């Protein structure tokens, strides 16, 4: 029995491989033609050659390709219905034991199966593609398909061009509504601004020259306060620092000034010096110089602003006051006052290099 099956296996394996090798090709092309093409059998006749020839040319491995291609397909085809294939029963009958003949047939299959079938599938796919390209068929269906493809290409290009010209016309309805809303709001804001500016112009150039003068004075005053060129008064705090051990440095005063500014001080003076943007603090061996003139003790810093927040800013734990006391051993006293007068004025800066630029706008009223 074992011998028989061996023999039968040898018999059975080469037979179906060789015999249905051609059979398979024919059958696939048959199905091809029935599927795709019923009109031109001559073209279909040429098909197997076109498929087979490039295969062998293309790659050296293809020796194995037709076999493996044939084997699995043949087994699949012959196993369920052995009687249907006219050539299959003959080798089976010759070996005289069909059941064992089938078993070894399916046996070698898994060994050869995974890789060659992939190769075969690839070759088949390429061959099919090549065949499809080499044999344009002129049925109505194919022409309609080609026309549809033309339509696709056309629409694709038109759409791409349309998108690249991106403008309002390509936006969707909701986006357009959003854009419209934005434009409307902006328009409203600009209209309000126009009305305000027109009012201002009417006051300035119109019947009331007094109004223009008044506004100009107000602006001049604001600028003067900012520049520190006029005496000012208002609620605020007075900080007095007695530095007996002479350890307070310019840095500490600058810290103090910035703390006050951060807390909203509108105007600050140190002793007789008004603190403005150009004010300098310099350490010298004998004393601290503010704007190049030494200041004497006690240092008195006056600040106008919200007294409570100014005082709080200085009195913070770990803040300026504590540092002056702990690190510099200075005595610091802070008093809130209803009315702080700052009489010190800053010397007008040297502005010989400056002229107002042509595009300089007017200050907001």
């Amino acid at each position, binding site marked *: 029995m074992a011998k028989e099956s061996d023999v039968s296996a040898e018999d059975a394996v080469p037979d179906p491989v060789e015999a249905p090798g051609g059979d398979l090709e024919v059958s696939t092309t048959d199905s*091809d033609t029935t599927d795709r093409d019923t009109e031109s059998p001559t073209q279909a006749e040429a098909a197997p050659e076109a498929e087979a020839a490039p295969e062998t040319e293309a790659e050296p491995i293809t020796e194995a390709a037709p076999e493996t291609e044939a084997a699995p397909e043949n087994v699949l085809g012959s196993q369920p219905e052995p009687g249907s294939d006219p050539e299959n029963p003959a080798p089976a009958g010759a070996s005289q034991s069909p059941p064992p003949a089938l078993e070894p047939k399916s046996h070698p299959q898994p060994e050869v199966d995974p890789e060659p079938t992939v190769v075969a599938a690839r070759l088949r796919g390429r061959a099919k593609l090549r065949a499809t*390209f080499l044999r344009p068929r002129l049925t109505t269906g194919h022409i*309609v*398909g080609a026309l*549809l493809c*033309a339509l696709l290409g056309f*629409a694709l290009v038109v759409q791409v061009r*349309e*998108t690249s010209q991106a403008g309002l016309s390509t936006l969707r309805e909701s986006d357009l509504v959003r854009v419209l809303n934005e434009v409307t709001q902006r328009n409203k804001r600009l209209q309000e601004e126009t009305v305000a500016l027109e009012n201002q112009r009417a006051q300035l150039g119109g019947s009331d020259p007094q109004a223009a003068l008044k506004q100009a004075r107000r602006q001049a005053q604001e600028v003067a306060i900012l520049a520190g060129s006029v005496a000012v008064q208002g609620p605020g705090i007075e900080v007095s620092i007695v530095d007996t051990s002479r350890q307070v440095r310019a840095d500490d005063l600058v810290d103090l000034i910035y703390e006050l500014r951060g807390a909203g001080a509108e105007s600050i003076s140190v002793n007789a010096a008004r603190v403005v943007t150009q004010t300098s603090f310099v350490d010298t061996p004998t004393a601290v110089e503010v704007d190049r003139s030494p200041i004497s003790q006690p240092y008195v810093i006056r600040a106008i602003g919200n007294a409570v927040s100014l005082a709080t800013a200085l009195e913070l734990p770990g803040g300026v006051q504590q540092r002056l006391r702990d690190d510099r051993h200075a005595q610091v006293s802070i008093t809130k006052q209803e009315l702080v007068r700052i009489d010190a004025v800053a010397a007008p800066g040297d502005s010989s290099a400056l002229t107002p630029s042509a595009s300089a706008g007017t200050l907001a009223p």
Partner: protein
Amino acid sequence: MLALAGLILGVLIGVFMPVGVPVWVQPYLPIAVVAALDASFGGLRAVLDGIFNDRVFVISFVSNVIVAALIVFLGDQLGVGSQLATAVVVVLGIRIFSNAAAIRRHLFGA
């Protein structure tokens, strides 16, 4: 072959003819193009699978385009046009990818 020639012809016509998109088509053309791309990839895959049928291709192409445009139209009427358009593009994109994978398996065996 014929299909490729048609595609190239269409592109050439599109490039050399200064045609704008009519306003009423504008919301639907991009979606329709994506749907047509999906149908084309499906067709190529069917060729490689050996089950290509021109009738099926034509019908699936036309119906894909129409259904896609219809969905977007319906979405616009319901006020969810952009969302539905996104949904259509996502679905078609997935299909294009799976078809492309099948084609790749056929051509490169991997």
